[in-house]
Structures are given as structure tokens and as C-alpha cells.
């Protein structure tokens, strides 16, 4: 245990807390953004902070600070206890007992720290250079950015828990602008890994260029009811809207679409969804959650049937169940319930084989208006951009299409899943393959 954690736990007990929990986070960041072959900005930093929860007569107090001087830590204890005085006392307000935590290898890359900053700058420059060299219609890049970081988490509580882990992340982001006649289209792609060496330079460039240039000349099409294939990224973004409904807290607070549906068929029989914080390639992977509870894979939907909800210690106490190790937080917040790596299980079809099942339909690549979706009712009205599918092939680009409906209804219409699992950041680290939906009314001309 670090001295900060020790000092806070001891002081909290002395000041009248029956129990206490300390969450310390430290991190580094390096970010470079380039524009037209030159560095636009470089950011380099070390950062830290600590959050404290106190428990007294089943009342939780919480406060956080970025100041680690002794006087500031003492103030932190006083503030947390003071806040706790006004909170509602609940039997469910308890700290978890320590359990043994299986280590999770591969979260932090040993190649991360020694990587020469110049190579990172070169990566960003090369993304920009190659994007404008690949397709004459892409003459400009509006963002070429490389960023990485290493974060360390330490958690300790008065039940004797003391645990920590480190995690590294590196990613590149590329925004392109394609132009033809007077039309402009923007394209976006990103690549991620544990360190620079894991990033896919050629892939991110090809995708950002294709996303912009491939949609030039897109036209509206007439309204039709057709099979729809969602690109993995588009599907992941829709799953992101659903993710909050898996939280037992949302169920308790009557804000979940899935409330009261355990054991019911909420998706078609081929839909399997799990939340897996121990996934090797998952950027949200962690050996334990925000309360120090060991993490584990949680099956949420199996063969279309809802299996249960994600729980932290509080919601588990309230619903007479067990924590699923799903507390998410930063040092600035108390542990909430949330997803880590949420995955829609891929099928066995190749992407081409999936498309071959569509004679006349729509391939959705970009969604708009996702933040207008109501996560409580699940109702959505989205704008769609992509390509028309004819005889199993992507043909002309199409835009200004709309689809309205309900997220649950969509899950029930899933008839095929490809094997091309991809991940996106969408309220969690969310993975999906290409998804074929039976038929949707698509609004157009």
C-alpha cells in the first residue's frame, strides 16, 4: 500500500469512519497532433488524484482531490465524512470483502515507456502523408493525431484490500476530407493497441480514405423496406446505446429498457452478448473493478435470452445477488455500474458470405443522431449513410436515409452475424461483427 492510501485509511478511522476506501490513480500522457507535415502541438504530462469513500452508520461520504500534501489529505477525510452526514443511510452501503484476484497479463506493454517520441511523431506525420497520397480526391486531412498513456490504479480498503494494476494504451486518429466537384465528405478511422508497435498504419489510412472518398457522389434512394447490414462500427454504436440498460442500477432506478426481462427472449436466437473485462485485446480490460472486486466475464444475453444484469456491491446488496465485478469509476467519482468490453459474439460467416445473403438492401456505414436516441425508451430515429447492396455486392453510395424504431425490436430482427469482430469506443469498449437485420423500413426520397 502506498503512503497516501495508508495515511488516508488511518486518518479516516481516527476521524470516526467505521470503514473507508481509497482509490488512487496516476497516469502519463503523450499526444502529438500534426497538420500539413508539421507538428501542431505536443502534450506531455504526468497526472494523479485520489478519491476517498467513508462509511459511517451505513452512510457513504465521498470526496476527491488532486492535492496530495498532508494538509490536503486531511481536508479530504473531513470533507468525505461531512458529506456522509447528509447521505441516506442504507443497509446496502457496504464495502466488499477482499477476494483473491487473478492477475491479468498483457494490460501494460513493456515497450510503451522506452518508445522514442520521434517515432510517435513520425507515425502521425506518416498517417497524414499517406492519406493524401492514397487517393487524389483526398487532398486534406483535418486531424492526424497520435496519443498514448500509461495509467496505474491502486485501491485499498479497511477490510484489508490492497491491489493495483497498470495499463497502457496507444492510438492513432485520422480524419480525412474527400472532395469532388463541389461536394465534401469527411471520413474517420482509428487504430489502437497497447503501444505504438501494435498500431496498424496502413489499415487506418486505408479506412479513413475509403470512408470519405467511398461516399462521394452518394445520393438518396426511394423509401423501401429492405434487409439491412450494419458495419461492425455502426452496430457497435447502437449496442453502446443499449449498454446502460444492462446496469442493475438502471433497473433499480427504473431507467432500463431491460427491466423485468430476465429469462425472456429479448433478441433473436443467434444473439449472444457478454461483458468481458478479461478480454486480451480489450482496452477496458482490468483484473478487478472500481471496488476491488475480481473481474470476470458476464454473459448478459444468451441465445437471445436475457441472463441478468451487471452489478456493483450496492446493487447486489439491494437485489440479493452477487457483485459481477462491474463497478466503474475514476478517482473523481464513486463506483457506478457500467460495461467494460461489451461484445456481440461474432458468427461464422465471412463478411462476403453475409453480404451474399442480400439480393437488394442497404449497407450502413455511418449513423447520425445517435445521441438523440432515448436510452430509457429505446426509441430511435437515425440518419444512415452507406452503400446499396445488389446481388450480394456493395454498389452505389447512398445518403439521407432514415430509420426509426426501437433498439429491442432491432435485436429481435438479427438474422445473421459475420466473423469480422471490430471494436469501437461508444460508452465502453464495444465490439460487434457485421450484423444482418431481416428487414427495416428505410425512409428516403
Amino acid at each position: 500500500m502506498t503512503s497516501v492510501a495508508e495515511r488516508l485509511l488511518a486518518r479516516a478511522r481516527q476521524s470516526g469512519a467505521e470503514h473507508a476506501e481509497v482509490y488512487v490513480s496516476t497516469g502519463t500522457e503523450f499526444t502529438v497532433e500534426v497538420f500539413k507535415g508539421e507538428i501542431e502541438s505536443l502534450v506531455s504530462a504526468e497526472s494523479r488524484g485520489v478519491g476517498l469513500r467513508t462509511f459511517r452508520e451505513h452512510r457513504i461520504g465521498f470526496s476527491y482531490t488532486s492535492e496530495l500534501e498532508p494538509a490536503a489529505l486531511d481536508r479530504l477525510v473531513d470533507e468525505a465524512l461531512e458529506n456522509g452526514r447528509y447521505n441516506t443511510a442504507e443497509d446496502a452501503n457496504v464495502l466488499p470483502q477482499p477476494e483473491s484476484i487473478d492477475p491479468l497479463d498483457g494490460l501494460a506493454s513493456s515497450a510503451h515507456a522506452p518508445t522514442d517520441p520521434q517515432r510517435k511523431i513520425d507515425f502521425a506525420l506518416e498517417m497524414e502523408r499517406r492519406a493524401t497520397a492514397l487517393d487524389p480526391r483526398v487532398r486534406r486531412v483535418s486531424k492526424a493525431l497520435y496519443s498514448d498513456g500509461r495509467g496505474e490504479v491502486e485501491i485499498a480498503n479497511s477490510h484489508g484490500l490492497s491491489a493495483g494494476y497498470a495499463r497502457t494504451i496507444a492510438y492513432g486518429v485520422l480524419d480525412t476530407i474527400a472532395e469532388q466537384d463541389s461536394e465534401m465528405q469527411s471520413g474517420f478511422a482509428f487504430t489502437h493497441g497497447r503501444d505504438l508497435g501494435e498500431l496498424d498504419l496502413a489499415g487506418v489510412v486505408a479506412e479513413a480514405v475509403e470512408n470519405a472518398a467511398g461516399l462521394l457522389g452518394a445520393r438518396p434512394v426511394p423509401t423501401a423496406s429492405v434487409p439491412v447490414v450494419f458495419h461492425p462500427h455502426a452496430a457497435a454504436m447502437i449496442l453502446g446505446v443499449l449498454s446502460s440498460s444492462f446496469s442493475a442500477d438502471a433497473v433499480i432506478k427504473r431507467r432500463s429498457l431491460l427491466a423485468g426481462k430476465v429469462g425472456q427472449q429479448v433478441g433473436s436466437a443467434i444473439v449472444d452478448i457478454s461483458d468481458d473485462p478479461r478480454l486480451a485485446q480489450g482496452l477496458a480490460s482490468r483484473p478487478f473493478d472500481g471496488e476491488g472486486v475480481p473481474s470476470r466475464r458476464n454473459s448478459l444475453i444468451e441465445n437471445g435470452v436475457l441472463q441478468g444484469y451487471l452489478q456493483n456491491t450496492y446493487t447486489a446488496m439491494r437485489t440479493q445477488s452477487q457483485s459481477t465485478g462491474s463497478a466503474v469509476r475514476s478517482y473523481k467519482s464513486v463506483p457506478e455500474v457500467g460495461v467494460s468490453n461489451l461484445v456481440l459474439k461474432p458468427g461464422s460467416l465471412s463478411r462476403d458470405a453475409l453480404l451474399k445473403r442480400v439480393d437488394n438492401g442497404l449497407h450502413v456505414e455511418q449513423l447520425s443522431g445517435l445521441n438523440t436516441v432515448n436510452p430509457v425508451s429505446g426509441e430511435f430515429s437515425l440518419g444512415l449513410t452507406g452503400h446499396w447492396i445488389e446481388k450480394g455486392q456493395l454498389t452505389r453510395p447512398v445518403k439521407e436515409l432514415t430509420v426509426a424504431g426501437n433498439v429491442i425490436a432491432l435485436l429481435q430482427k438479427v438474422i445473421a452475424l459475420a466473423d469480422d469482430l471490430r471494436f469501437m469506443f461508444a460508452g465502453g469498449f464495444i465490439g460487434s461483427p457485421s450484423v444482418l437485420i431481416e428487414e427495416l423500413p428505410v425512409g428516403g426520397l
Partner: protein
Amino acid sequence: MPLLEPSLVDSVIKRALKSGADFVELFVERKRNQSISVEESKVQRISSGNDLGAGLRIIHRGTVSYVYTEDLSEDGLLRSADLAAQVGRRGGGRFALADLAGDAHKPQLIEVPPESVGPEAKIELLLEADQAARAVSGSIRQVAVGYGQSAQEVLVATSEGMQHVDSRTRVRLMVHAVAERNGEIQTAMEAPGMQQGFEFFDQTSPAEYARAAAQRAVALLDAAPSPAGAMPVVIGNEFGGVLFHEACGHGLEADFVGKGSTVFTGKIGQPVASPIVTAIDDGTLTSRWGTLSVDDEGVPTRRNTLIQDGVLVSYMFDRIRAGQQNHPVTGNGRRQSYQHLPIPRMTNTFIAAGAHSVADIIAATPHGLYAKKLGAGQVDVTTGDFVFAVTEGYLIENGQIGRPVRGATIVGNGPRALHRIDMVGNDLKLAPGTCGKEGQAVPVSVGQPTIRISELTVGGTGIGPAGAMRP
């Protein structure tokens, strides 16, 4: 007590200059906040936080480098100064800052500092609001009420010898109501806020806002699905201004303009809107959510006319973009915190009031949609295409407000919509919001009077990824 001893400010800047930097800027920030939430009619959470940190920006041979830290000891800061100098030594960029200009206006006075008010009074207001919302109807099945306060102090000092401090105190109320009937769910929210002390609640009744949210959620249960298609759309005042903010405001930020990634690039002096449209960004308004004495680069804020009678007059600049584009500063350099580089951002942005009453506008519209309140939206800055949710909408039939509709979205293109504004009301109001861009969230106001757009698509249309704004 100063955020940082003046002698330490000096020595940090001198240390960074020693490496040969052309420019050094130190930004120090302390932010204290408190939030209280009531759910299930009881205090669910009360928490407080304390952020203190510094960011050091240096420009060395045209390259910008930035280092931030929470370690404000002399050793810690000098180490950061060395690191910034080392990172920045690469050089070879082409950045220079525009000169400072203008005087800072006086910071507003806070009558009752929120920190001086105990939690009891705040909790009482929240419980009143909770009860008021639940009393509206048996169909209200959940109410969440929240209170938030923050006090941010910033210090900006540069190697030019400039030094400014600013203090920003905000209080806000949030009410979220969920109504349910026969398995159908509708929600509504209200979230008023000002840069004031606790005296904010002298004029703001949490119970009234709670009732309004609950009534709207219940009314939506009876609303019919919105018709789709092209039609005239009347957009309500206050948060309706989010449409201008997203679909046009971001396109007038000088970083996008500098990269040619907005439709407004190169259009200064040209008509970009209907001649009845004047749009303004004003960081000096008293007590507003996006008001600043100086921006986060120490530049005094001002009232900037963006569009005058339909003609594009100005973009919004930070010092870097003003320097690049050879333009005077406008006081729009903002950052989420000491952990972020400043970029051009809006402050309080609105369409100026026009001549018509709301009644005139409705009466002059034979049929269409009255989008009285807008919710979240999305816009592609490159194309100007947007989508917004209508959270309170009515059909307009024969020049009268008709039945409520739900699930409507309005979709269109910012520049085209600006040209199609054919009536502007006299009921200008502003509303607070949190604007997200490049991963940085900053408080802003949006606003407008009631306006009519002669034709917009109701339903949906396709656009790409973009910035996001939440109320």
C-alpha cells in the same frame, strides 16, 4: 491567497524561457465542486471535489508544446518547465500568437457563495422538486433531481509580462422525469443554471422546473408519432439556439476554418444567412453560463458579431489561430481544465431578437411543426448537415398550435437552413449547456428568439460524425 506565489510564477516562466523558447504561458487552476443527487425521493449521493493543477505552454521555433501537472511545488513546477522546454525543442512549426488586446471587465459579484450554504438547504430544495414532480400525475414513475455547484479560479501569466486572474462560480439544478403508461415510456428534463451564487434560487423555483419536466413527460404519453417529410418548422426560443450553435457556430471556430474543414471558410463579407439574421457570441453578458472576464489565455472577452444582417462578419479565435490568420483576438480561447490546450470555443452564442411575436409566427404558418424544445443533436462540421431531437413538439394546423407529437427529429443543412430563416421572434432567451469538442467539455450558453425555417425535413437524413452538445 493567490493561486501561486508571484515569485514562483516568475521563476517558472524564466526557467522555461532559458531553453530559448519564444513564448511561455503558465495556466494555474483551482476548481472546487459539490454535487447532490436525489433519486427514489432520497439523497442518493453527495460528493465534493478539489482540482488544483497547472499547464505550461511554450512555443519554440513555431512549435507548441504543453506540459501539465498537479505538483505545484517549486520543484514540481520547475521540473515541468524543463520538460516543456525539452519537448518543445523540436521546433520547425509555424505558430505564433496574436497580440493581446482590450481590458478585462470586472468579474461579477457573487452575493451568496454556494460554499457558504450548508447541504441541508440544498437538499430541501431538491426534495421539494422531487415531490412537486411526483405530484403531477400517477404516471410519473421516476424522478431524478440534482444540484451542482463549482467555483473555478484561474491564473494566466505569460512571458510577455501579462497576468490575469478570473473567478467563475456556477450553480445548476437538474430535473429528469420519467412517465410510464401501459409499458410506454417518455422522459423530459429541465436544467437551469447561472454563474451566480446561491441567490440563483431567489428567482429560480426548483419545484416549478420539476413540475414543468413532469408535465411534459406525461403529455408526451398522449402525443401522436410525428409525421415525416419536408415542412416549415418553427423552433422555440432558449435551448432552440442549440441548432445555431451546432450547425453554424462550430463552423465559425477558427481552428476548423484554418483547416478549411468548414463550409464557412473564405466567406467573410458574403451573405451566409437570410438578411433578417444577426448572430452574436458575447462572453461579457452578466452571470451567463459561458461568461468569462478573461478567456483561458488571459484575453478579455468581448461581444463579437458573427453574422450581421445575413452577412458573415467574423470567426471566433484563440491566440494561435488569430496569429495564423492575421486577425485580432476575440476572447474565445478556452480549455476544459489545466490538462488541456486552449482551442477556439464559443461563450454565449445566440441569434439576435427580431420583430415578430410568437403568436404572429404561428398564425402566419398554415401548417408545419412547432419544435418548442430541442434536445440533443449532432452535426458534421465539414458539410454542415445536422440532426436534432425535438423534445417538445406540436403540429401547426391552420395557423394554430395543434396536437403534440413525439419522436420527431429535424434534419437539414446548417448553411441552407440559415438562408431559409424567414421569421425571427422578439422573445430572445439563453439557456446553459455543456459543449463538447476535441474531448474538451466547456460551459456555454445557447440562445435565440423563436424562429421559423421555411423548410426543413422532419424525420431524418444521413450525416457523419461530429461534435456533440448536451443541455
